[in-house]
């Protein structure tokens, strides 16, 4: 492909991305192409990095995203009949007009998640959206794209966030199923991405009983399956008669995090509330969620990976969108990398 033949050095020029990439109230804005990246208000043209609700919203006139992200947005009713859609597979270049080229590189965050690569006037800006470097069997791995400006998130940008390998966390769950076989292990997961990653990893670890799913997880799991993911047998909780509580004992039930100890969980006998999230590294957070088991499962880059990634892109400038911005900015500057906070608003840290 054409872009691979060019070395990133060839993009270094005196043209300042500061001039053509701007922060506007609606979000990150590419002026010459008149297009926003993950805007949090309806706009005319939008590039959407991935399908999570704080990045993908409804009401845009024209949407550019990977085909998977478009499918997710359709499933979540973020796209209307009149929305113009352009699906771009990873690596496929598209001329946005006025000399701006767009292509997507995988971000390793969830299915279809992408870094938006914008090239203009001899310089290249990469807006990474949300991303992670840890392996994830449910989506394509992160790809390092050399660039002049790398726009990064900072959700877990503190030295205390060093995410353990997922296998260790899944092993915790498997061990608990063995030692507490009478309890229903209710695992709180976000419907998009976390749910599928956890299921897939459990299958790889040898868990072979059916998964029981809350209704809110169904459509997106089916969508993942339509892209070739295999989660083995899963059954809707609502398909099991209310009286058959024993069915769930010693099994894994997946539901949105808010449900693990809310009214919905009353249908289970002796439930064991578990939360799978990157925040679970902090004990007080886990206690606050009343989780009895805390699985550290993050779909974001941890502290080490954030810094490593910023370095690997070779970018002269790092712009930081959301999260623990101050710490990352400080640490990058200490390493002699120019970094600045974009002071973006509207990202919800509790959604991963």
């Amino acid at each position, binding site marked *: 492909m054409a872009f691979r033949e060019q070395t990133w050095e060839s993009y270094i020029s005196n043209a300042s991305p500061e001039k053509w990439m701007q922060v506007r109230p609606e979000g990150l804005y590419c002026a010459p192409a008149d297009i926003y990246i993950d805007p949090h208000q309806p706009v005319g043209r939008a590039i959407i990095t991935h399908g999570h609700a704080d990045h993908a919203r409804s009401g845009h006139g024209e949407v550019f995203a990977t085909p998977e992200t478009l499918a997710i947005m359709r499933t979540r009713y973020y796209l209307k009949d009149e929305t113009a859609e352009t699906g771009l597979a990873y690596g496929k270049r598209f001329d946005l007009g006025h000399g701006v080229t767009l292509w997507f590189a995988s971000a390793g965050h969830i299915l279809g998640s992408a870094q938006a690569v914008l090239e203009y006037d001899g310089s290249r800006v990469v807006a990474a959206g949300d991303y992670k470097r840890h392996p994830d069997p449910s989506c394509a791995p992160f790809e390092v794209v050399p660039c002049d400006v790398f726009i990064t998130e900072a959700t877990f940008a*503190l*030295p*205390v*966030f*060093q995410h*353990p390998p997922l296998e260790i966390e899944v092993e915790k769950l498997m061990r608990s199923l063995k030692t507490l076989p009478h309890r229903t292990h209710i695992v709180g997961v976000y419907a998009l991405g976390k749910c599928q990653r956890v299921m897939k990893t459990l299958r790889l670890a040898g868990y072979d009983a059916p998964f029981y799913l809350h209704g809110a997880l169904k459509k997106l799991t089916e969508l993942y399956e339509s892209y070739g993911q295999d989660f083995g047998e899963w059954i809707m909780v609502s398909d099991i008669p209310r009286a058959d509580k024993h069915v769930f004992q010693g099994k894994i039930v997946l539901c949105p995090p808010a449900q693990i*100890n*809310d*009214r*919905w*969980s*009353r249908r289970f006998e002796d439930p064991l*509330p578990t939360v799978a999230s990157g925040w679970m*590294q*902090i*004990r*007080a957070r*886990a*206690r*606050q969620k*009343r*989780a*009895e*088991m*805390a699985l550290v499962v993050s779909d974001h880059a941890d502290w080490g990976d954030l810094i490593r990634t910023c370095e690997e892109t070779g970018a002269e400038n790092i712009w930081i969108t959301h999260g*623990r911005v*101050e*710490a990352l900015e*400080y*640490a990058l500057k*200490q390493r002699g990398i120019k970094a600045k906070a974009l002071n973006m608003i509207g990202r919800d840290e509790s959604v991963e």
Partner: protein
Amino acid sequence: MDKFAQLLDDLYFTNSNLAKEIILTNYLRATPDPDRGWALSAIAGTLSFDLFKRNVIKSLMMERMDPFLFDMSRDYVGEMSETVALAWPQSADPVRLNRLPDLHEVIAEFQSRDKAGIRDYLILLLDNMTPSQRWALLKLGTRGLRIGMSARSVKLTLAKMKKVDIDVIESIWHGLTPPYLDLFAWIDGEAELPDLSDKVTFSPVMLAHPIDEDKDLARISPATHIAEWKWDGIRVQISSNGTETKIFSRKGEDISGSFPDLVSSVNFNGIMDGELLVKPGGELGSFNDLQQRLNKKKPTKALMEKLPAHIIAYDILEVDGHNLRQETLSERREKLGAALSENPQTRIDISETLPFKTIDDLHNLREKAAQTGGLIEGLMIKNTSSAYVSGRPKHAWYKWKRDPFLLDAVLMYARRGTGKRSSYYSDYTFGLWSEDGDLLPIGKAYFGFTDEELKEIDKWVRNHKLQRFGPVQEVEKGLVFEVAFDSAQESKRHKSGYALRFPRIHRIRWDKPASEADKLSSLKVLVGT
């Protein structure tokens, strides 16, 4: 050490007490001596030494980590040990251990080293540990374990393991020392109960039944019973062998450390039972005053002078090595009086008996107790022929509390409970109206209602949500609880200026509009302040 860290993690994240007991039992059965004894000691809070000081950890971090990033991390995490456990920067060239040392090896190693050696060993361990192992080590080393398991439930676990009453464990507990080899030998059936006759130990106490006015009043007469004030302090046992003195709480917790003024004043050989209070300005103080002493593990001299500890003694179990438990209350009281006059005690008074001829007299006394602003909780009525029996024997001692105070308060915040109640909003904060028409919180309660009522309140909360503050849900000001409580004290820590003692939900006033709930001024009248 890895098993110990695993144990702490399991206990920390488990909500149910029963499940915690099972987890601890499994660990104690599967772990050899002396590790299990050290673990027990760490959890029960009986370790008497730090392995290292907190400032050693701090200085290690300052050498290894940018101070700005460390401060940001600690602010985010909320405490130092966990921050260090998570963010520990590995040494440039770390020494790798083939295996993590056992708990007892860790303890012995730290104790055998000098200051510089302690530092090196700490680095070695931290380099070789996972975050949760590091957390366990740091908490163990600085004796800062808070995993939600009380010394009481540790003892209960041991009692269940040996299939004996918890009293048995409590009566030997304070004579035992970590790593409890003799205790476990006994539990495993390999040795007899250790001989602790020369140690100052706790004797399980005798408890009273709440009086059943309809049935029990008829059993009472001045010929067979005595009446005493029921003071609003805490029940304690003063145990001394002439050289060493300990103060135990009702549940056998050693609280001597909080009351050195009392301990040093004791001058007899025996075991007394009584109520602990404080005497600010030479007068008996409220429970609120006492609480300031209870919360201090090491009280300052100034605090002890302001709030000197005082005992009102009402029973004696042993004197000069003689067991008095089988004697009658009349005989014991005589010996208590004799002991106190033989060796006058500066901080111990005998509990006076209240003369009465008729049951009406008792009613009047109880009424009088209600006028003391909470200082006296009611009456104790005791059968003079009763022996001292631990537990709650029938018809021996009665407690007759004065009626609780009642107020109509408005529900302000609710939060979900734990365990079986984790899906229900079952913990309530309620308030009274100020003169300015603001609602000010006066207390929290999470019992007093039936399961059916809980479901209804839960539904009401869900339908009347306002803002959320983390786990705390603010609700519309529309539901009135009739709240019962034993006393109220002025308190600077509460915005309303009051703290309630033992508040519970007495009735749910579905019928009452919130605007008609009580004002803060009615609380003032009730407590007579």
